[in-house]
């Protein structure tokens, strides 16, 4: 198969940006030495990357919708919603995502879940790694913008989970509150199925969090938001970030770094406490990508003012409208971390949390050729999926020159 050599770039490899060429064949990243010495073949195409940074494609594990569509409320238009969002995300450098469904009824889950199929990305849009079900097994106190009438307990633990959601085949992640009775049973059941369990929307204590972790919960949903406030005598589940009872290298947490949902100081505290577990998420809602003004999400009215999306008539944030590349830039600025750390928070860390680093989240030989070409200040120039240029910013397209 024809090989493409990406030259004049800096690639993110082994936790560093190095001046190396990237070699792609048949949708995968390949080892150039094997091509050179064993196959003795030159590349068929060369691309001058104009000094760009090449990072693994970004992975968003929490996104409720965008571009006017909502995965929870547009239950009759699920395929359309996924298509539109998947395509729109390419401009943000996102190559894989988890469409997120918030607290809903069993009827909605039965309608929507079977249509949120896992699918590879490509020219039509970013790939779907599975659904993220945020709720309904959450704390009423910490519901955020979730509809309180659909929040429910785990009467029979994992049995209830299966009853409410229906088929779990397309589910990649579930957020639940660890303090609920029978939560650990639910966590065990889900973990055994290979579904990542995340603690969130919780009024629980650090002990509740640790119990859930021991049962298999490995993720935390939008750290700081919709959880017990950190108190120095009662840290809540936020305290898990330094817990001596947990193998910290296995704990990951999402954080919305849109400059609004989390104060820069809070971002810094999380980053300094447990940098390797930090995963950037957008938690974006339907109006993302639409611009200022009034919009309708499901049965709620939302107002966009600048970079904030509020429930009309209140000061309650109803999710963010930030883009993933915007998150990365905000994060770099607030946490004062390195470019590498920020890029890994959007790629390597979520991939590790999901257990998919063999194919996604890195530029290692053999992994899927999903990557982003970035300027030094981390703006997206182009996005590639399986080695194909699926998005290019206006005037920034990269030319694939055939080699003579």
């Amino acid at each position, binding site marked *: 198969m024809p090989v493409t050599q990406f030259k004049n770039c800096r690639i993110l490899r082994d936790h560093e940006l190095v001046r190396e*060429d990237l070699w792609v064949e048949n949708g995968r990243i390949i080892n150039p*030495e094997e091509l*050179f010495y064993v*196959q*003795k073949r030159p590349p068929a195409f060369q691309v001058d990357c104009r000094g760009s940074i090449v990072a693994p494609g970004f992975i968003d594990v929490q996104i409720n919708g965008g571009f006017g569509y909502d995965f929870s409320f547009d239950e009759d238009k699920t395929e359309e919603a996924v298509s539109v969002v998947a395509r729109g995300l390419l401009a943000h450098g996102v190559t894989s995502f988890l469409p997120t469904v918030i607290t809903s009824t069993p009827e909605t889950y039965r309608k929507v879940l079977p249509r949120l199929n896992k699918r590879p990305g490509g020219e039509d849009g970013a790939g779907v790694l599975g659904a993220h079900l945020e709720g309904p097994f959450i704390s009423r106190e910490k519901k955020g913008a979730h509809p309180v009438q659909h929040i429910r307990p785990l009467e029979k633990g994992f049995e209830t989970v299966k009853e409410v959601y229906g088929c779990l085949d397309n589910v990649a992640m579930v957020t639940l509150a660890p303090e609920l009775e029978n939560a650990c049973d639910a966590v065990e059941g889900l973990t055994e199925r290979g579904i990542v369990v995340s603690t969130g929307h919780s009024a629980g204590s650090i002990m509740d969090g640790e119990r859930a972790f021991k049962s298999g919960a490995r993720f935390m949903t939008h750290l700081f938001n919709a959880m017990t406030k950190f108190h120095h005598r009662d840290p809540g589940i936020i305290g898990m970030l330094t817990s001596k009872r947990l193998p910290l290298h296995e704990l990951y947490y999402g954080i919305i770094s849109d400059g609004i949902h989390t104060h820069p100081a809070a971002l810094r505290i999380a980053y300094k406490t447990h940098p390797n577990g930090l995963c950037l998420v957008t938690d974006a809602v339907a109006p993302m990508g639409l611009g200022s003004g009034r919009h309708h999400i499901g049965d709620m009215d939302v107002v966009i003012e600048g970079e904030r999306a509020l429930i009309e008539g209140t000061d309650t944030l109803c999710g963010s409208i930030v883009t993933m590349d915007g998150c990365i830039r905000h994060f770099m600025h607030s946490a004062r971390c390195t470019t590498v750390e920020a890029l890994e928070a959007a790629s390597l860390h979520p991939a590790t949390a999901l257990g998919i680093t063999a194919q996604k989240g890195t530029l290692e030989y053999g992994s899927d050729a999903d990557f982003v070409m970035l300027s030094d200040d981390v703006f997206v120039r182009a996005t590639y999926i399986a080695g194909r240029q699926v998005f290019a910013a206006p005037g920034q397209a990269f030319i694939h020159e055939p080699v003579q």
Partner: protein
Amino acid sequence: MRLVILDNANQVADWSARYIVKRIRDFNPGPDRYFVLGLPTGLPRDHPESYHSYMWNHLFKHIDIHPENVNLLDGTCSDLEAECARYEAKIAEAGGIELFMGGIGPDGHVAFNEPGSSLVSRTRVKTLNQDTIQANARFFDNDISKVPTRALTVGVGTVMDANEVLILITGQHKAYALHQAIEEGVNHMWTVSAFQELWSVHSKQIDDPVAFESTRHG
């Protein structure tokens, strides 16, 4: 023989690189006219990264050479003697080495032709001496026991057949070897000395501290 003395290792590298580029261009190679550039084996065979990785990272990935025009000794094949013979034959078939570029060891060896090597030797399997093994330990986590004890190498005779030989010598620890190479006689204990006898022009470059040492001994 021509001696070019420069101030530091960077200048030596720069001068040599430009010289080689000029020689290749002046030669005007083409599909039927190969410019055969000889380079010495750098690492013993079976190195986990191998000489292949070394050459890829330091040369091949930076230039547009066609992979089919690259000929490395294959230390992993089952019949090493046949491999050496094949290599010599391929050199002859390509028209012989036009320019051979190499360095020397502190013991005056070129490629792996260590002290005691025959001056008319060809490409062959060579047992390495203790100095070389020690010098290579750094590629094997400084564990002497892991360093291979044999290597495939082009012979002194193989290099002598080249039209031109370019030897780069830098560093104080090579000073005595240089002195032996150019100020003493041809000697199989300092195999690089064989090149004194080449009647065609060839050059060596050194940096100053080395030249100083040379004058003192000479």
